[in-house]
């Protein structure tokens, strides 16, 4: 049964140096507050997993938390490069970053296999690309038809972290809108953390929503606004101006370090982070 804890305690009790940690949320419901807490705890040597490492992974990589990245698309959506990710790959700053690179379909199949406790996922993909020789993928023959298909190893994170709109007081979680690979992340992980916009007395069923029962989740933590600058459908919109501003903030090492110190290391929670954002005249 999910335990409901404060976010700092939740991250502190679940994450350890050197672990495989996945933070998911496909553009929507990205667990930024939990990512910031990982930075505040100064974890090191993490293998970070995420289909679309964007701003939150740029921050984690630039803050020196990651040793390895397993991913399929690393950019600032609609804007361009992730400068901290690029600096790590191109110049090993602040430390070298090992890459295990996949396609989206490969990552999705690997998460689904992890959630099903199967050893690998199967897809038609990777064939004929240069990625085949650079990543963990194998060609296998279908035992029934003889067709050659690709196998990718299941993703089984030590800790899987997602953000959702609501939990009830027992820790059942409901999320809606674009639900990405969030359910698979929770079910594939040995231990899981779900941060939520609000905790309600009881969940009101919504069309198209996913409900993840409390007994399948390790910890639930309240983090209103915890997806910023991404969005929480029904709560707040995507802060597109922030993604634009991040391009400038992250381009320069010193400016990045100063921003992280002011907005993450010197604050203790989402509320403090928000106050610094507003106090700074917006985002910078």
């Amino acid at each position, binding site marked *: 049964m999910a335990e409901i804890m404060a976010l700092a305690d939740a991250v502190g009790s679940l994450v350890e140096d050197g672990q495989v940690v996945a933070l998911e949320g496909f553009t929507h419901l990205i667990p930024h507050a939990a990512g910031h807490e990982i930075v505040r705890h100064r974890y090191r040597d993490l293998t970070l997993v995420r289909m679309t490492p964007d701003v939150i992974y740029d921050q984690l990589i630039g803050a020196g938390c990651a040793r390895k990245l397993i991913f399929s698309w690393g950019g600032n959506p609609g804007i361009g490069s992730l400068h901290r990710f690029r600096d790590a*790959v191109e110049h090993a700053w602040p430390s070298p970053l090992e890459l295990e690179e996949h396609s989206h*379909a490969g990552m999705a199949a690997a998460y689904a296999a992890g959630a099903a406790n199967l050893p690998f996922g199967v897809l038609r993909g990777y064939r004929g690309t240069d990625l085949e020789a650079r990543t963990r993928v194998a060609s296998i023959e279908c035992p029934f038809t003889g067709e050659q298909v690709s196998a990718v190893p299941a993703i089984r994170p030590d800790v899987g972290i997602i953000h959702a709109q609501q939990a009830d007081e027992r820790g059942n979680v409901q999320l809606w809108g674009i639900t990405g690979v969030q359910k*698979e992340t929770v079910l594939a992980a040995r231990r899981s953390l779900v941060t939520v916009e609000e905790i309600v007395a009881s969940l009101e069923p919504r069309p198209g929503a996913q409900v993840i029962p409390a007994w399948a989740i390790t910890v639930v933590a309240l983090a209103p606004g915890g997806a910023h600058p991404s969005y929480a459908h029904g709560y707040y919109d995507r802060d597109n101006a922030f993604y634009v501003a991040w391009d400038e903030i992250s381009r320069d090492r010193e400016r990045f370090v100063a921003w992280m110190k002011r907005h993450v290391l010197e604050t203790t929670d989402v509320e403090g982070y928000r106050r610094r954002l507003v106090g700074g005249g917006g985002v910078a």
Partner: protein
Amino acid sequence: MSDPGYSADEMMAVAAARRLRDGMACFVGIGAPSRAANLARATHAPGCVLIYESGTIGAKPRHLPLSIGDGELAETADSVVSVPEIFAYWLQSGRIDVGFLGAAQIDRFANLNSTVIGEYDRPLVRLPGCGGAPEIAASCKQTFVMLRQSLRSFVERLDFRSTVGFGDGSRSRERLGFSGAGVTAVVTDLGVLEPDPQTCELTLTMVHPGVAVDRVRSATGWAIRVSESLSTGAAPSPHELAALRALEIPGERGAQ
């Protein structure tokens, strides 16, 4: 040359949009492909089904989304499914008519690079990576590619083959077991390239108004073949231009 009243990027979006037919199911990448697909839906193909890899099927945004997961895509979609489902049930099953991609580099067989410039282990520029592109190009019934034409982007040899168009030429796709027809059109800011029916090599089949063939040649990193029936496309109509410009959100996002 006098100002034609539209930009090369607008011409590219209009030329790409014209290739979509009403009712087609279209798997759309963000950026230029999304712009063109939404223009088609706003003009001659209102029944075009836009599918984004975030799992939104039949999205009907009024303005161009900044990312593939914007809230408006989910709010206006016929159905929102998970990411594993969109790739497994909808894409790899071969249900999608057209895949619509961009890239950093393309070669003569329409293979795409969106991974690195330079060596993989010591890249000069680390690009975002392939995302959904390899399986989109493998499984859609046909694929359109959009990118600006230059010596940097149209290269003799890719630095990295992220996505297979026609591999090493004819019959490569069959050998790899791909179901779709592959890249059937590459729309650029200068014209349109289509694969030769026999060799699969990209051939210039159309230039945009005011574009000379020599200009295309000098923006291509290999000796590009030119179709005997090369045509000149039509300039954007006032209706197309108005619809395209109406898709941009004034202010915040339109400024990008």
